[in-house]
């Protein structure tokens, strides 16, 4: 019944992005890339837990890293966490990315805070070619470049304003990448509109992909049914639940907003 874990390290990566390294045998031993944890933010006026993806797992050190952006009350409280503090943390939760050892050439495409769950995919995947395409608002928003460089064979960065890397969106990077070289599998996480466009691009080329979805959550484990996400179900549709059926879904299962 113990959900309390110790923080080994807490670090600010950019103006509003923070990394927390958590010591947890429980989580590190069973977590896989793309899963998430549900964290009780310590402080007043925050009632629900906050879902955050596992960014990196160190199974020998028995730690996991989460990386998050300060968005509201909860993430602000989390940004005050220091090494040595404890956190009440549920996880690992949800269905992570599918790692198929037969795939030799994979690609990850991430936008903004969507890049974080993709790092562990690169770390865990045995593919020979691993392309990473990351999109950021501007130069000062670029984080974790070294880590992604380390675990990919090819890293490309785009910024909305061109202040770093190529000017444009990740979708543009993806379009180029797949026209040059067809990946066996693409892993996508980012804003809904970006994921939708990526999935569309890939569908045209019949390249399989997985996307990691976001939705407001309660329990985080499939019981309260609040985290609904529209998915195809035969010729009909249904609401799946991001916390249990996801957060990772096969790209072709998701019915995006604009459909």
């Amino acid at each position, binding site marked *: *019944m113990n959900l309390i874990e110790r923080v080994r390290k807490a670090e600010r990566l950019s103006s509003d992005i923070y990394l927390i390294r958590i010591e947890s045998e429980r989580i590190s031993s069973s977590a896989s890339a793309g899963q998430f944890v549900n964290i*009780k933010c310590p402080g007043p*006026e*925050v*009632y*629900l*837990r906050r879902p955050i993806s596992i960014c990196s797992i160190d199974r020998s050190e028995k730690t996991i890293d989460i990386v998050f952006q300060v968005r509201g009350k909860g993430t602000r409280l989390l940004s005050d966490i220091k090494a040595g503090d404890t956190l009440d943390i*549920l996880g690992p939760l949800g269905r992570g990315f599918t790692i198929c050892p037969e795939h030799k050439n994979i690609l990850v495409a991430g936008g903004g805070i969507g890049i974080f769950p993709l790092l562990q995919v690169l770390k865990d995947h045995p593919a020979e070619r691993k392309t990473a395409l990351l999109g950021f608002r501007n130069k000062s928003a670029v984080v974790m470049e070294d880590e992604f460089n380390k675990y990919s064979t090819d890293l490309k960065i785009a910024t909305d304003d061109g202040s770093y890397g190529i000017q444009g969106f990740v979708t543009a990077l993806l379009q180029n990448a797949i026209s040059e070289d067809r990946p066996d599998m693409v892993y996508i996480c980012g804003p809904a509109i970006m994921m939708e466009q990526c999935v569309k691009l890939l569908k045209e080329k019949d390249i399989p992909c997985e996307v990691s979805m976001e*939705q*407001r*959550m*309660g*329990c985080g*484990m*499939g*019981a*309260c*049914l*609040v*985290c*609904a*996400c*529209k998915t195809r179900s035969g010729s009909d549709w*249904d*609401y799946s639940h991001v916390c*249990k059926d996801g957060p990772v879904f096969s790209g072709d299962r998701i019915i995006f907003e604009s459909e």
Partner: protein
Amino acid sequence: MSNNINMSVEIAGVRLKNPVLAASGTFGFGREYSEYFDLSLLGGISVKGLTLKPRKGNPPPRIAETPSGILNSVGLQNPGVHYFIENEIPFLRKYDTAIIANASGNTVEEYEQMVEILSDADIDAIELNLSCPNVKEGCMSFGSTAEGIVNVVKRVKKYAKKPLIVKLTPNVTDIVEIAKAAEDSGADALSLINTLLGMAIDAKTRKPILKNITGGLSGPAIKPVALRMVYQVAQNVKIPVIGMGGISNGTDAVEFLLAGASAVMVGTAGLVNPYAWIETVKGIEEYMKETNISDVKELIGGLII
């Protein structure tokens, strides 16, 4: 747990090993939480609200955080009563805990059919949800007037071969009138409160946070309203009352028992703390030890005025 403490209570002929139940809609069909603790530790489980046919529920976002509470607008997403009977009861029956089927309908006829079907299922009681604020037809519209209550309860009663618990909405002027109407129409027990109708707005986007615009408020924020209604109702009916609304621990539960509840349900608190249900059981036991009470029934209605 402790041998010299009697935690069992009886609700409408159903013996519960302890007075703590999982509230409908917050515990699914128990599967998820069975990975966290032994479901046999619970007095009972009120399962996710069932309807005759499967329901997709409302579009997301379906949850908003509010001060010491949440709003939800799930809208009774469920696989339908037949799926429940075939696929979920066998799983739940592996545990030694009471199964309560929470049932909703769009029409009185649907309520009748639900009760008829569930009466033949392997469950311990039926909880008639006359109080869901998140669906357009039925439900709360039946539960918010005494006539509506009488109409549904009298008619379903004919089909009921299981104890009938009627769940009340707090969104009414006079909860006692509603409770009495349910009692007079044949309810074997009452459960209250369901959620308070509420709303949350995001000032940044200028939009309601819930896609459904309004939703049901639950959690600690509503505890004072729930306690008051349980107290008022318990004073005025003879059938047992199951109290709920913001219970997060043993102390909260004891307050509801003192106010007159014969058992309690824990809902929202469990979404934040998956052990809230069993910690509530333990908390009541600890309170009883500290205050030298050996039978939990002594607490029921034990408020000193």
